[in-house]
């Protein structure tokens, strides 16, 4: 395709020839002819050779905020030069270039290859695709441009960030946090004997094995097997209302981070974790344990987007039959725009579940993007406080999670209720 310069040169050439003919001026005619000849000679070379691209990523799965190293190998597979070729690797607009550049101007000789390396920062979770590769070949004198796409994609999943969760915050009620069905062969708090070990200062006296002390002359303590928590249920609110706030800071983003962090924490303890995401539909991942379940949960959380308005009670009603008896349930929701939350929580508590409501404060997220009058803010805040108090009154542990608050810090509030 001709560029604007080529069009102007050609039109100018024709105009000069015609004017030159009209006023019998040879210089103009020759200038015009030269312009046309310039276009003609340059038109002998157009397009570019067959180019092969190959993209290598440092990882297929990353956590939000991590850096992705990309290397694009461009090889000229044809028997001709590529001419001036601009290679541009299309990256999702959510990703930011951290280092290097995703484009290069090159001129590859037959068989030659060039590597474009760059680093991307992935600030948002989700399923992304890098590519296609745009190629734009130009004539040396910028008279013709050809554009094409090489349909080469690399898929990548950005998982939500995993925050550190300290055990102490989640097992404040009883020594044995939840009743377990299986026993794990790892030391911890439980009822079955695991092994004997030497006493270290701080060990409770009740664990001292006196018979062993009498036998060996050294203080020995009994270690127990940790009782496993069977099933833990995470209910994540992904309704449309969860998008309130900025792209990076909104109840849904915080919700995914907390769900991923809690799942990571419990799965690390070999517990079984189930995940239910409710938006316009209900997606349910049955309880399971291990790395596979961890990957499934993170993948599911990566693809979450706010939509729909399914009430919580509909979720609990649907899932109540699947919940194991007495298992803890985490509800991660701003509790806004849903009048069924108190009833749903009451119902769960009534069934013997230990319910924890982790509620990102949507009013404060709203405040990040729009100015709310002080009086309105106070009223809204009061309404929210009442709602949370009602939930706490129903027997749930309620955590009011402010935007600038760390997850561990928020979980500490469990003790407060």
């Amino acid at each position: 395709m001709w560029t604007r310069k080529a069009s102007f040169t050609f039109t100018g050439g024709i105009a000069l020839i015609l004017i030159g003919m009209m006023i019998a001026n040879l210089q103009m005619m020759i200038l015009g002819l030269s312009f046309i000849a310039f276009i003609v000679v340059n038109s002998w070379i157009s397009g570019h050779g067959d180019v092969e691209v190959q993209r290598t990523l440092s990882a297929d799965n990353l956590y939000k905020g991590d850096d992705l190293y990309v290397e694009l190998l461009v090889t000229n597979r044809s028997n001709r030069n590529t001419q001036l070729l601009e290679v541009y690797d299309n990256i999702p607009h959510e990703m930011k270039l951290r280092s290097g550049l995703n484009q290069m101007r090159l001129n590859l000789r037959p068989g030659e290859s060039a590597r474009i390396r760059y680093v991307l920062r992935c600030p948002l979770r989700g399923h992304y695709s890098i590519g296609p590769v745009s190629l734009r070949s130009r004539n040396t004198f910028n008279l013709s441009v050809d554009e094409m796409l090489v349909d080469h994609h690399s898929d990548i999943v950005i998982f939500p960030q995993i925050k550190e969760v300290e055990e102490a915050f989640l097992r404040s009620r009883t020594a044995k946090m939840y009743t377990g069905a299986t026993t794990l062969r790892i030391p911890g708090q439980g009822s079955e004997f695991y092994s004997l070990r030497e006493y270290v200062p701080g060990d409770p006296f009740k664990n001292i094995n006196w018979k062993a002390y009498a036998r060996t002359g050294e203080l020995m303590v009994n270690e127990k097997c940790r009782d496993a928590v069977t099933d833990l249920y995470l209910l994540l609110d992904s309704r449309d209302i969860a998008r309130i706030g900025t792209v990076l800071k909104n109840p849904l983003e915080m919700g995914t981070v907390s769900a991923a962090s809690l799942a990571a924490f419990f799965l690390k303890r070999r517990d079984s974790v189930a995940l239910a995401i409710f938006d316009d539909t209900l997606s349910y991942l049955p309880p399971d344990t291990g790395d596979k379940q961890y990957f499934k949960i993170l993948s599911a959380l990566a693809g979450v987007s706010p939509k729909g308005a399914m009430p919580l009670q509909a979720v609990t009603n649907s899932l109540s039959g699947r919940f194991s008896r007495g298992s803890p349930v985490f509800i991660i929701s701003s509790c806004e725009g849903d009048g069924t939350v108190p009833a749903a929580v009451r119902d769960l508590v009534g069934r013997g579940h230990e319910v924890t409501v982790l509620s990102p404060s949507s009013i404060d997220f709203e405040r990040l993007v729009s100015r709310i009058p002080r009086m309105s803010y106070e009223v809204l805040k009061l309404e929210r406080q009442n709602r949370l108090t009602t939930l706490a009154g129903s027997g749930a542990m309620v955590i009011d999670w402010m935007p600038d608050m760390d997850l561990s810090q928020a979980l500490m509030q469990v003790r407060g209720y």
Partner: protein
Amino acid sequence: MADEVGLQGDVTISGELRPRTLHLKMLRKQWQIITLQVIATVALIGMYLEIVSTYVVGSIDHTMLFDTIEVLIGDQLPIGDWLTGEGRNGISRFFIPLVLGLALGGGMALLAFQTPAIQQRVKLGFIITLIVVLIGQLLLKWLTGMLFSLDLRLPNTNELSTLEWPLLMILSLMILFLYLLPVIMGVRGIWGLSRRSVAWAIGFTLLFLGIHAILAFPLINGQLGNYGNSVSVIGAQFSEPTIGIFGLMLVTTEQFSLIMIAILIMVFQESSYGVIRYLEYAYRLPESCKRDPEYVRQMDNVLNTHLKHTFGFLGLTGIATMVALGFHSVLLDIVKDSTGSQWAGQISESIELSLTYGLVISAAMFLSIMALLRFFVPWERIWGLIYARRAQEAVPQGKEIVDI
């Protein structure tokens, strides 16, 4: 956007040598860039001299204008003849002014790379000097005159006459500047990396050619009377061609110089804009890419190709224009030699075919054939195969390690 992305593979660092980068400081000293700039400068000078020798010298050149002014004022202009080229013959009248223009353009380019503070100081110094030269002598004479006579008065004729020298000097310099504008602006554009200056140089040249074409138009030229006679007119009718290729005489000397003007304009434009375009690209690259040997290598490739294409394509353009201009005579010869019929003889003697319309139509025909050739001859593949064969012979046995 840009942080470190270390060196790429196949590159090891040892010794004291620093790797080549695409920083402007380094890139401006690269041989390909300097070569392109030199080519652009040579093309600019060549184009200027060609235009001047074809249209200006002995017709409307600056020495003739100076002579006219000297006759009008009845005195010599303060600017020296050795500087203006007065008294010399032909194109040599432009040699010294040309050197002055190159120096001035170069100075302006040099100034463009100084810090804003220095630029401001130089400009301020220039303005102050100009004011001092212009009215310094007058003020000195007038004020001292008033001081000695203790009288408050306007400057008298004698004192005002001190303005004559600086005014004439500035006028002479302005005339020279006007004549040398394409050179000054061109050099400033090439070495000072200014697109605007290059555009000025080309625009001014084309404007001159346009104005000259209008003035040379017989209808207007006739209206100009004696002044019209001084405009050098190149007619559409030429003598027998004397310049050609492969034994075919294609164009006359006059036509050849007109082709040279057109080609040199294009060489100047493409080389100077090319340099600016590549340096601009390098400038916009993030720091990590500037240090990346891969980017450096590709920049080399691109610059080498530009150099090759400047010679190859623009040379071919010149040859194609020459052949296009002489194509009508080639056609006539072919018709005459091949058929030998009476009809062919009549056609070959037809004057219309060797006039403007015949020339342009045959040239357009030739260029159309040339344009169609791309569909029949795979030039790129032919060159690619030649290259591949050459590269195959020069393939190194082991993997190349760049030791920096």
